[in-house]
């Protein structure tokens, strides 16, 4: 039995959550102040994920970059693979907020989408 201490990143409070585990079985979770904390703690010990934000080059736009994010949290160990793909991507203006820039990035079934519009 091991106890892992996790700092929740869902909201600014940053609850300290304790997860007691037996191998890969979660026995007990406590220390959270809301339900979102349970979900985060479970994911953090079994399959840690993050929303990745970055930017993609834009040609002929009012700005040289468009900010982007993953449509869902991606596995932590895929972050640098995804960044490499993002770095090699270029789009043409105009770009609309919410537009899919890269589909199924690094075989994650998750898309890279624009978080702002660039004329």
């Amino acid at each position: 039995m091991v106890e892992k201490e996790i700092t929740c990143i869902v909201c600014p409070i940053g609850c300290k959550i304790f997860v007691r585990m037996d191998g890969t079985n979660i026995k007990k979770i406590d220390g959270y102040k809301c339900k979102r904390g349970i979900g985060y703690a479970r994911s953090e010990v079994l399959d840690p994920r993050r929303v990745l934000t970055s930017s993609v080059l834009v040609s002929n736009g009012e700005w040289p970059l468009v900010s982007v994010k993953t449509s869902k949290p991606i596995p932590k160990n895929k972050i640098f693979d995804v960044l490499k793909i993002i770095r090699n991507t270029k789009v043409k203006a105009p770009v609309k907020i919410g537009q899919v820039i890269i589909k199924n990035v690094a075989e994650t079934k998750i898309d890279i989408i624009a978080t702002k519009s660039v004329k």
Partner: protein
Amino acid sequence: MIEHSVDVAVIGGGPAGLAAAVSARENGAKDALILDRNSWLGGILPQCIHDGFGVEETGISMTGPEYANMYTNAVKKQAIDVWNETMVLEFNKKLEITAVNKKGLHKIKTKSIILAMGCREKTRWNVLIPGDRPSGIFTAGVAQAFINLYNILPGKNVVILGSGDVGLIMARRLKLEGANVLGVVEILPYASGLPRNVVQCLDDYDIPMFLNHTITCIKGRGRLESVTIAQVGKNMNILPETKQEIKCDTLLLSLGLIPENELSKGAGIELDNITGGPVVDQDYMTSISGVFACGNCLQVYDTVDALAVGAKHAGKYAVTWKSKNDGLKVKSGKDVRYVVPQKITKKGTTRFTLRVEKSMQNVTFYVKSGGDEIFKKKLRWVNPANMVEINVDISDKMINSKKDLEVSIDG
């Protein structure tokens, strides 16, 4: 001079200005005008490409540009007039604004003015770091604009001084962009930024944090070559035997923010020495009747969510204000650094935002009118980096007693 008139004029088109203007229109302002220096709306938000905005306000975690988009859509919907690339030169007690842009010099007559000028970053000269004056030293926000708006990487081997949220977020951003982040140096025994940013910006990428450390020397001819860091003792004295030199080409400073109030000073508005922002009442009205303040020019907020609550409140009361009476003062008692608002002029449920002097556990907040306890709340932990909010019911009796209020902690 070109003359105009408008019900509510908002100085600054960042998150506070947008929220205040939208709220003013929703609460019955006939028309509203936002004045901003930049060519875009949203202030700092477009360069804050990370997520975490709006969680408390909407339940959804947005990136900065997405959060800005939500409010610029609301500004359009409310038919709020926006003047970009416009510099406000001054305003006065008669509620007239003088501003300049490419079309010329403007005089704007208003029924109320909302101040939302935001804040500035502290620089090397605010903390007086000794040494050379090479290039390669940036405030964290400037580096953020370089990377996220202009596609310029400010350096390759980076040290960050100060563990405020912008500093932590920039540590991750630089790492993801391929720079070598050598460490975050923090003079306090704990990080100044939010716990979630320590986890997802430093711990996730094994970026070291040097707590109880500061920079004692900057070296470099032309470009930055190294910084010397050292541990500090209990009285913040430098411990010379702990000095170590770190080779680097870039130093980012995340030292805190200063509310921008040059215009407020020019108009003769009373400022609070601790917050650096105007002294306001429960409606966020300043010492000049009809002039309101919100956002980071009022006090530096932890999150845009808490900032928006205050800005909407200012926007609402900017529509219906009456000339003020004196009211009660709100004083900061034991272990409380400051309280906003600093004055209470009417009864009702009042939202106090405050900061404590030091980290403490299991504390009780007390609000007293004269010597009488009127409010009590227990909190498991407090620290200076986290703003505390309490809602206190103010009665007519308290107003009429003319006794000042005091907020304090019995830890």
